[in-house]
């Protein structure tokens, strides 16, 4: 039985390193391979950036009152994760698709890649609104 570890972060760019360190620590303790750690870091960065840039109401600069929570349970088989923020209710995965790069280059969207990436890198991805939080649950199997 793995005891999940939860940590709170502020949705500020300077907290991203701390979130990445938390991911690395949890995975290293469970003996997760570097490639899987990298995938989990990417997923968490994209969710974190989504909260920071789009989830919370725009305020001048980064506000310290915009928390996110990450819970990780890492085993040798993979990682089960819960990502939460306290932004207004919003399901980021509704009607999501990868940007289309098939047309003329001038029509390609510059952004909008992060959340589609999350949908492709995770298993069992699920969004629910629980109380005042947006909760996203997912799993990442170990590589190979």
């Amino acid at each position, binding site marked *: 039985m793995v005891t999940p570890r939860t940590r709170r972060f502020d949705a500020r760019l300077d907290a991203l390193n701390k979130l990445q360190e938390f991911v690395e620590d949890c995975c290293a303790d469970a003996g997760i391979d570097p490639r899987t750690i990298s995938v989990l870091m990417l997923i968490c960065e994209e969710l974190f950036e989504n909260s920071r840039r789009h989830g919370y109401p725009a305020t001048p600069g980064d506000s310290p009152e915009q928390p996110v929570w990450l819970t990780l349970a890492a085993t040798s088989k993979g990682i089960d994760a819960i990502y939460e923020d306290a932004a207004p209710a919003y399901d980021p995965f509704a009607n999501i698709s990868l940007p289309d790069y098939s047309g003329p280059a001038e029509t*390609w969207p510059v952004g909008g890649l992060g959340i589609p990436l999350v949908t492709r890198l995770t298993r069992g991805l699920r969004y629910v609104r629980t109380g005042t939080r947006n909760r996203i649950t997912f799993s990442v199997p170990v590589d190979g």
Partner: protein
Amino acid sequence: MQLTEERIGNALLLKASGRLDSNTAATFKTALQPYLEQCKPGGHVIVLDFATIDYISSMGFQVLLVAQNRAKTQYGSIAIAALQPGVRAVFEIANFSKAIRCFDSVRDAIAELAPAAFASYIKGA
């Protein structure tokens, strides 16, 4: 993030290393900017050597797309070479290898995009 440059004829080889994520994307964009000005016919083609980039997120992709858009408006060429397997996998999953030209090696990129510089590159390699 720093870029190291190597000029080989009309090819400009820019080597980046480390992580290309939300923390470093802005620095990478700023570092790339002066090189993009000369990325046009009569100037140079840009080959980004990603052999030592070990992580990329969507913020990194955004910078690459903006750089390519700039190059295209100037009729210039920009490409990425030598992606590590894990980074290449993210490019494929993101469909991003359809957005920007990727080559297996710097050698392949220069051979295709800057054939006039290829002989010099081989001599120096």
